[in-house]
């Protein structure tokens, strides 16, 4: 037996660690010996949380106890699975999970997501669940704009003596005109929705005994606000393959600008009429009053110009040899609660691992090695491949967050045979 190159203390510590790990593995992986499964994964296509009340598509969970796989939950449910809600009424939900044991090592995979009608469902073994079809839309929040008010002092602010003098006899008409014009525009806009428009948003993950990896894909996804009488205002287009935990924070200043422009157009028409008696100062008065009204409007809609939407793309949370991936997590920030109903949309949540190993004597008993057997034990697997997951490596070089993939890949019988012969030929030469 070779001599150890390290001090006894190092060796002892390693031996203890290995013994401990072995005991843990045996406890965790032995069928029937403990509750923890050898392999596990779960998937949830969609979770909508409105005012802290969640509605979701249900969860598919796959576990493997070392002998059998158990899958519970509904795969690929209908939108109606979310119950009575008004946020999404069409689309294709996908959620699938699988757990297996290969060479006594647990493996699991999951995928989950949402696409529009006409999307094609894909097996979890292929990675992502969906090939996009039509786009789907989710109402991710509703703007409430009717409370904007303008008072007389707002209209007069900053006007010089000449303009104030010209305006004074007309104030009785101008003030109601401004008020009614504002209300007309804002009422016409109503309570516009913040719409999440997507071709497909989905996540997938996979785990072995050594670690887990996951990814997300957002196809043709973006947020917009549909303003009746004004039109669609795009807020943000989301990247297709975002790195893990990509943050997209957006304000609604483009919405405020669109509303302001609409108000200004209407006001210009209305005020030009009621201010006609003030000629030749009509144009100056219209410009000044417009500026004051828009300033008031901007002040009262100011919260929309702060960050009101907080989206996390490819959200990844890591555990010990496990991962949870959510393709898209959109939250309306509390700062906007005066204008927007608080909604949290989570699309495509997949979880994989942690997975363990089946104890050597289960589920298929293997002969106890004969101590007199002249053939010593040799490696039958060398899992020496790592997936580099962003941010997975710590400063100490530990591979926490990376995945060692020791999985078997079926190769052609010819190639396999050739390779094997090659080993014999080379190693016996």
């Amino acid at each position, binding site marked *: 037996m070779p001599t150890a190159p390290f001090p006894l203390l190092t060796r002892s510590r390693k031996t203890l660690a*290995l013994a401990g790990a072995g005991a843990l593995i045996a406890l965790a992986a032995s069928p029937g010996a403990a509750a923890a499964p050898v392999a596990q994964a779960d998937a949830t296509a969609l979770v909508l949380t409105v005012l802290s009340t969640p509605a979701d598509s249900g969860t598919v969970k796959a576990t493997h106890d070392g002998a059998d796989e158990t899958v519970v939950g509904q795969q690929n449910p209908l939108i109606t699975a979310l119950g009575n809600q008004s946020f999404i009424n069409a689309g294709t939900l996908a959620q699938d999970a699988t757990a297996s044991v290969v060479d006594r090592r647990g493996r699991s995979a999951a995928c989950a997501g949402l696409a529009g009608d006409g999307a094609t469902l894909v097996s979890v073994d292929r*990675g992502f669940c969906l090939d996009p079809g039509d786009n789907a839309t989710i109402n991710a929040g509703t703007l409430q704009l009717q409370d904007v008010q303008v008072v007389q002092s707002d209209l007069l602010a900053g006007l010089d003596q000449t303009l104030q003098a010209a305006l004074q006899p007309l104030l009785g008409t101008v003030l109601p005109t401004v008020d009614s014009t504002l209300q007309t525009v804002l009422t016409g806009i109503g309570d516009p929705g913040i719409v999440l428009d997507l071709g497909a948003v989905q996540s997938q993950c996979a785990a072995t005994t050594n670690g887990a990896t996951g990814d997300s894909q957002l196809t043709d996804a973006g947020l917009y606000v549909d303003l009746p009488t004004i039109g669609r205002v795009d807020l943000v287009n989301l990247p297709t393959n975002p790195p893990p935990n990509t943050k997209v924070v957006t304000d609604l200043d483009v919405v405020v600008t669109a509303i302001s422009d609409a108000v200004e157009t209407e006001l210009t028409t209305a005020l030009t009429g009621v201010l006609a008696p003030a000629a030749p100062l009509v144009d100056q008065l219209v410009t000044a009053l417009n500026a004051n009204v828009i300033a008031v409007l901007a002040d009262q809609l100011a919260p929309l110009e702060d960050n009101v939407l907080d989206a996390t793309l490819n959200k990844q949370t890591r555990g010990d040899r496990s991962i949870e991936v959510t393709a898209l997590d959109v939250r309306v920030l509390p700062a906007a609660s005066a204008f927007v109903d608080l909604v949290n949309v989570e699309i495509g949540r997949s979880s994989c691992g942690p997975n363990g190993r089946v104890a050597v004597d289960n589920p298929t008993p293997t002969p106890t090695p004969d101590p007199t057997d002249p053939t010593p034990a040799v*490696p*039958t697997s060398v899992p020496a*491949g790592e*997936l580099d997951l962003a941010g997975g490596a710590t400063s100490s070089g530990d591979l926490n967050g990376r995945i060692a993939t020791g999985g078997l890949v079926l190769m052609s019988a010819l190639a396999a045979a050739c390779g094997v012969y090659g080993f014999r030929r080379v190693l016996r030469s």
Partner: protein
Amino acid sequence: MAAGLVFTGGVLTGRGLAGSPAVEAAPAPPAPTVTVTADPPATPAAVRPVPPAAGPPAPPTRLVVPKLDIKAPVVDIDLSSDAVLEPPSDPDLVGWWTGSAEPGATQGRVVVTGHTVSTGGGALDLLPELEPGDKVVLVTATGRHRYRVTDSLFASYRDVAEHAQDIFGQTETSPAGARLILVTCTGFNGRFYAGNSIVVARPL
């Protein structure tokens, strides 16, 4: 990957699988090089440092592969109870299987493995690039053991599992010194690795 695998398999088959239809159809590949080849013309001794003697068998402490610019510390690793040989978790390190031969021993094979990382940074990322004739050095506490690569192979995980004794068996007796087996993973397809890259080297 599939093309590479078939190519590798074809070459290996051609080396000795007489009667195989694949071999008969394929052009004859070069004969395997398993004999010791002389070093390139030596630099004058006066200007070339003399490498230390190999010394008695001892566990390796450093792996040096000049062609790939690998200078990796070697730590000892043990075989798990289910016959899995896990490389060190730190991808900068490589592991020497303590159940294998020490460099300089005359029985068994020296088995060293290290990680390949999909985005780079693994000690043995470039191992499949080694070719027959390339040099490898294992440094021990007692000296430097120099090897020359004789074969660079690909094996699926199934191949490795089914023919573990052929690859890692420790019964071989080699008066000239135990051969070196370097192992990592290769064939990353975006989700997982297709198999192992195995490099075989003879002591010089």
